[in-house]
């Protein structure tokens, strides 16, 4: 069609704000081609589990309805999911720094459709990470817990990690750079330690009180909750929801301040 036949009244606006499977496919391929993302979110949690979790001392010790290996498996799955969603969120900031977000504003793609695609990609990577740890754990055979605990813990770790998508977005806006994950990686390792993913923290100690205020604490305990059963502690839920509000508000605040031409 040549330009002479352009009739503005014949041109239509795409449905779903421009959301489509071609772009989703390219976004999926992008993240799977990103070696650093794959190593950190898919391979590292698996290796950590194999190193720490399969220790013969842990396979014998009980933890709730399973053994300590299962406890560590759940922790590593949660860690992988958190890394995945955080990098997903931070990706938005990277794209903004590259001027890609601005380029997209010259297309019919709506901001809502864009955020939706990013959320799907982050959740896809998070799910891959949770599945990788769980499948390796299953094949390895050291972790023991009832089937419904495997499933429930995996789903909670996966869905709860959405909070960290907002975290990645917020920090990405604060430090707009292509290498934001180099800052976020170590920061998450520290937060994971404080949140009780690396080693158990006694809840009645000083460290325990500090731990309860850090962002990974809620997710770590909720993900391990199916292993122990009973009612989830209110503080876990408050922790997760509280940090969700903080991160979403932070990201929204930075976005609204974002009038810079990039």
């Amino acid at each position: 069609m040549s330009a002479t036949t352009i009739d503005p009244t014949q041109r239509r606006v795409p449905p779903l704000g421009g959301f489509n499977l071609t772009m989703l496919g390219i976004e999926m391929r992008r993240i799977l081609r990103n070696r650093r993302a794959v190593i950190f979110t898919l391979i590292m949690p698996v290796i950590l589990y194999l190193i720490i979790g399969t220790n013969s001392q842990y396979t014998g010790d009980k933890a709730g309805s399973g053994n300590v290996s299962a406890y560590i498996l759940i922790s590593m799955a949660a860690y992988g999911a958190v890394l995945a969603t955080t990098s997903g969120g931070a990706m938005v900031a990277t794209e903004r720094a590259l001027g890609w977000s601005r380029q997209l504003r010259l297309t019919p793609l709506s901001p809502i459709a864009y955020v939706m695609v990013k959320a799907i990609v982050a959740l896809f990577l998070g799910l891959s990470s949770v599945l990788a740890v769980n499948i390796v754990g299953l094949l390895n055979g050291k972790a023991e817990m009832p089937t419904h605990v495997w499933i429930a813990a995996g789903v909670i770790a996966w869905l709860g990690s959405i909070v960290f998508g907002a975290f990645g977005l917020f920090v990405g806006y604060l430090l707009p750079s292509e290498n934001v994950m180099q800052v976020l990686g170590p920061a998450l390792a520290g937060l994971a330690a404080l949140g009780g993913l690396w080693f158990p923290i006694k809840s009645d100690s000083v460290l325990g009180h500090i731990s309860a205020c850090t962002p990974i604490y809620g997710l770590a305990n909720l993900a391990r909750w199916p292993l122990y059963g009973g009612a989830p502690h209110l503080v876990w839920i408050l922790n997760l929801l509280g940090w969700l509000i903080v991160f979403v508000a932070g990201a929204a605040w930075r976005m609204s301040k974002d009038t810079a031409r990039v």
Partner: protein
Amino acid sequence: MSSSIPAVSLSGVTKHFGAVQAVRGIDLTIEPGEVVAFLGPNGAGKTSTIDMMLGLSEPTSGSAQILGLEPRDAIARGLVSAVMQTGGLLKDITVRETVAYTASLFVHTRDIDDVLAEAGITGIADRKVEKCSGGEQQRLRFAMALLSDPALLLLDEPTTGMDVEGRRTFWSAIRSDAQKGRTVLFATHYLEEADQYADRIVLISHGKVVADGSGSEIKSLASGRTVRATLNQPDTAALASLPGVDNVEVRGESVYVHAKDSDVVARYLLNETSARDLEITAQGLEEAFLNLTGDAT
């Protein structure tokens, strides 16, 4: 058809960033099929004005319409596209993926291979964007802008980073494209580029339109022409009293008369005096540009 609807219509558009007045009241109408240069020094308000045409920012006052639509609506329908100066590309995907990604967002798109060929990047289609040179990336941006077959193409300093040959190829593509009826508006601070490739030059300075016309109109508007002739003992007082004359200078056997209306001077010299070897020269666009934008030193 919509031939009566202007491609671009700005009325009383202003844009303030805090205390800074980037655009201070621009009225502009561009008819379909025109190739218009937005010429001005850096910081004149070119990019701010283009941003408002693209709906990337809202005017502080006044209104901007593209083909009779709000800018965002025109973009959603693929009627307007733009090539930006820098950035705007993902580094970790290939050239073809970038084009396919962009194409997937529009309802109406041209064939991806056709567009790659037109932009001259078929040969590098499978190359990662980060491995492309500045000129290749610019051609990729051009391909992305052509995808939706837009009625209006906005180019912000489009040939930045291109070599001379790349620049020539780029402009011949744009010109042949415009002959098919596409409206093109490009911002530039290369005077030569505006003079050579645009039908019309809109000169902006300090957020206002200071001149609007063809290249030669702009040049004469700025400062008229210089008439030189060989003439013994010219009557400088009589020359200076001619309408529109602002300077008379005698150098040896030659007299130089600078005037808004060179025809009057030439007629006088040839009819009333024994002047010979008459020459009329317009000053370069560069000089005109500096005079008009008030940045001459």
